[in-house]
């Protein structure tokens, strides 16, 4: 196990910067998710960590040991990094049995037959595949293949486990089971885990911290609740969680990180990003409202018109239009007619600079 440090890593394919000046610090034993839209460079970043790609600039170190640093002509090859990796396509070897797939890292390390068998059995038990040891991978289902890939990582006691969209090929039900399996795995082994996904709910459910990526940059790295409550910029606010970002004027900064903003005819109290509060211009301020921040109260002064109503089981989600082109998702306890006028009470919100991060 080891902590992982990336410092100003850049990787170009031709003229295209797939990963651009990325710095990351991941603590030993942490479960970090790399979240971002498809094509933003997540896989490339993971492959840089694993050593399959060589960075053009920057430095990668693992437990204080430099793994890659083009400036110093250092490039440790993947086989010497002791990192486990789980591929989206599972990458099980079709010509080996499940047991041999799992035991291969031990075979490479020249472990004795008896030790190998014991560790293979242990690893297969952890992923609940003991009875399948002698099957061929083609005789397993998708979820089972995924667990074999995980067991293969497990036996080698890697310094960290890298997972590239491991659940993307599985059905929804299996996905939840496997999420739990990954979490159990993390708790049992205490392994540092870096989990690439484009699915925000997956990232939120599992990770200690999430790094949100976009166009080769890391936009924000924080705990899931921080990302959700206090997005650093527009991209993060839109990508993580439901909600809406409204441009607002008339921000008055108060004490304790609070402020009051003007929304329609009413004035509401919201939390404000310290960077914005520290005297910077509030011309580009945006208000991020999550559905649970806004309550439907019939006689509230902020009025809106219901555009859409969806039953979620236990409650309804309404899209309420306020102003010309601003819609808010809000939760309600009763069904609303399309076109109906409702009153909204805003209990909380997050004000940040809508333009930050755009220049980069």
């Amino acid at each position: 196990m080891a902590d992982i440090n990336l410092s100003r890593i850049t990787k170009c394919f031709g003229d295209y910067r797939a990963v651009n000046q990325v710095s990351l610090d991941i603590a030993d034993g942490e479960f970090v998710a790399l979240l971002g839209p498809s094509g933003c460079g997540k896989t490339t970043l993971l492959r840089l960590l694993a050593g399959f790609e060589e960075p053009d600039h920057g430095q990668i170190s693992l437990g204080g040991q430099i793994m890659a640093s083009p400036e110093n002509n250092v490039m440790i090859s993947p086989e010497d990094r002791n990192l486990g990796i789980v591929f989206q396509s599972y990458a099980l070897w079709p010509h080996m049995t499940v047991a041999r797939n799992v035991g291969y890292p031990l075979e490479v390390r020249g472990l004795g037959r008896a030790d190998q068998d014991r560790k293979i059995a242990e690893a297969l038990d952890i992923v609940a595949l003991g009875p399948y040891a002698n099957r061929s991978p083609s005789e397993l289902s998708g979820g089972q293949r995924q667990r074999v890939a995980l067991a293969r990582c497990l036996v080698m006691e890697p310094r960290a486990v890298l997972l590239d969209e491991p659940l993307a090929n599985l059905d929804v039900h299996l996905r939840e089971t496997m999420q739990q399996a990954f979490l159990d795995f993390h708790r049992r082994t205490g392994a540092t885990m870096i989990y690439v996904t484009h699915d925000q709910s997956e990232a939120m459910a599992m990770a200690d911290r999430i790094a949100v990526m976009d166009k080769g940059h890391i936009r924000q790295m924080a705990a899931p609740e921080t990302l959700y409550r206090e997005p650093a910029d527009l991209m993060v606010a839109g990508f993580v969680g439901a909600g809406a970002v409204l441009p607002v004027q008339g921000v008055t900064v108060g004490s304790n990180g609070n402020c009051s903003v003007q929304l329609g005819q009413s004035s509401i109290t919201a939390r404000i990003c310290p960077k914005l509060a520290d005297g910077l211009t509030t011309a580009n301020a945006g208000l991020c409202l999550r559905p649970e921040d806004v309550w439907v109260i019939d006689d509230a002064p902020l009025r809106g018109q219901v555009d859409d109503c969806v039953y979620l089981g236990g409650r309804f989600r309404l899209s309420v239009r306020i102003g010309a082109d601003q819609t808010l998702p809000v939760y309600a306890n009763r069904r609303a007619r399309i076109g109906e006028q409702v009153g909204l009470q805003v209990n909380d919100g997050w004000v940040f600079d809508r333009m930050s991060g755009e220049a980069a």
Partner: protein
Amino acid sequence: MQATGRLRGVLPGIIAKPNGNRSSDRLLIWLVVPVFIISILPILRLGFEGVMVGGVPSFDYFHDVLGNSSTWRATANSLYTAGLGTIISLLIGGAFAFLVALTDIRAKAALVFCFMIPMMIPPQITALSWVQLTGPSSALLNAIGMAPPLGSPQPLYSAEGIALLLGIQHASIVFLTLRANLRMLPREQIEAARLAGARGGRLWWQIILPLTSPGLIAGTAMAFVTALGNFGIPAMLGIPAGYQTLPTLIYQKLAGFGPSVLGEVSVLAMLIGAIAICGVALHHRLLSKRDYRLMGMVGRPLDVKLGARRSLVEMALWTVLVAILVIPLLALFTTALVPAFGVKLTFANATFEAFHEVMFVQPSTIRAFQNSFVLSVGAAVTLVLMCLPLAYVMVRRPSNLTKLINLLVEVPYALPGVVLAIACILLFIRIPLIDVSLYGTLAIIFVAYLARFLVIALRPVMNSFTQLDPALEEAAQACGAGLSRRLRDILLPLAAPSAAAGALLVFLTAFNELTVSALLWSAGNETLGVLIFNLDDSGDTVLASAVAVLVVLVVIALMSCFQLAARRLPKGVVPWQT
């Protein structure tokens, strides 16, 4: 990396990257040196003859040869026969490969087994048997009383006749390359297309054909290049009709023997080499545009249900087999049984005298079998061992150097065998530096075989590496496996079917090979091809046919041994096994 590669010009890989701790860079050097010595140096040596006139550099030979209209006529003829022949190979080999690999026809193993045999018959024997079959003195047709009248023209003595036999001869090349490719086609991808509503022709044209196009293109290129360098068929069919292709033109130049022979042959060889390189470059261009790596599990093969049409398809396939295999073999066999060439075969005069003669009277037959066996097995094993790492480097770490190698290894195969033989004699008659002569030993034939058949072993392996999901190798890398371990544990088993197909191709092609060994053999070092040719050449056509029949029988026996061992080998190693 690209930029530095460009700066270093054509030899970037030889200089390891400044921080290149990648073992594949070191591997490349170890591979490049033998490949260079074996397949490129002899050609360069021959090329040297073409640009030196009386010891001074000159383009005189180029002027003479390229200014001669017979050169261009032969070039056009070569292109026409090789092109038409390739189309025929593609139709026959492609149809067999698709139907055998993807449908539920019965008796696949037997079909494939029989389909491999035409390739094992030396080209001049194929030509001989077809001429015997269709001509007025046909032993078979005479026996059943259907021979054309004496004096009527032989229809095979024509460009189309040459193309037809070239096409039949090389159909197995297309078949084997394509089949290795079809094996890796995951059933899911075709099922997905069927769920998307694709059926019948659409399924074939839009999904299966594009997915297998790497194999199709590779097989086509190989069949074309093979047909281009073929000597036996145009010699037997073209020379009587006054129809010249580049290989027969070279042969006639060589037969002429004059002071300028080597120089002119060298220029003609460059011409064939240039055409072959164009063909191969086109093949690489086409392939580079498609990166159809087949993701995921290499699963169970597909079984398209043919339904009511199955019997019809089976009948068509067996009819083609009878036409291209059984009838010529029968013709060969009947010739081996007649007491003298041209005599009408009857039950009364049929005799095994020729077989007795070649097996027990002439010691050269057994010796030739031994020599050819050692040479072809040795070449197949050596080449596969060389090609696995070489194909790996060429596919996974492409550089300008590997691209150059990729083109150059094609040349010794595309050149007519006699040309390669001359090149090898020039280079190895006195090896510089160590002052040893290989001439007059089996070793010179062996080296020439390595040069000639390198590309046959290389292509299928490259093809399968191209299709392998890179994650399979990267997973092993992450497990701590170094390059040699990955090659052994992961890549070798996964490429084994292709490598075995390549080795088998080398073995079968080398076993009956004639044109290279025709100039390189010496007493005691004759090969089967040479033996058959010498017998036929000295008028002992019946004895030649007997040896040819024996060769076919031995090869069938060997193939049967593989068949019996198939259960113990990894799936797909034996190409005709389903």
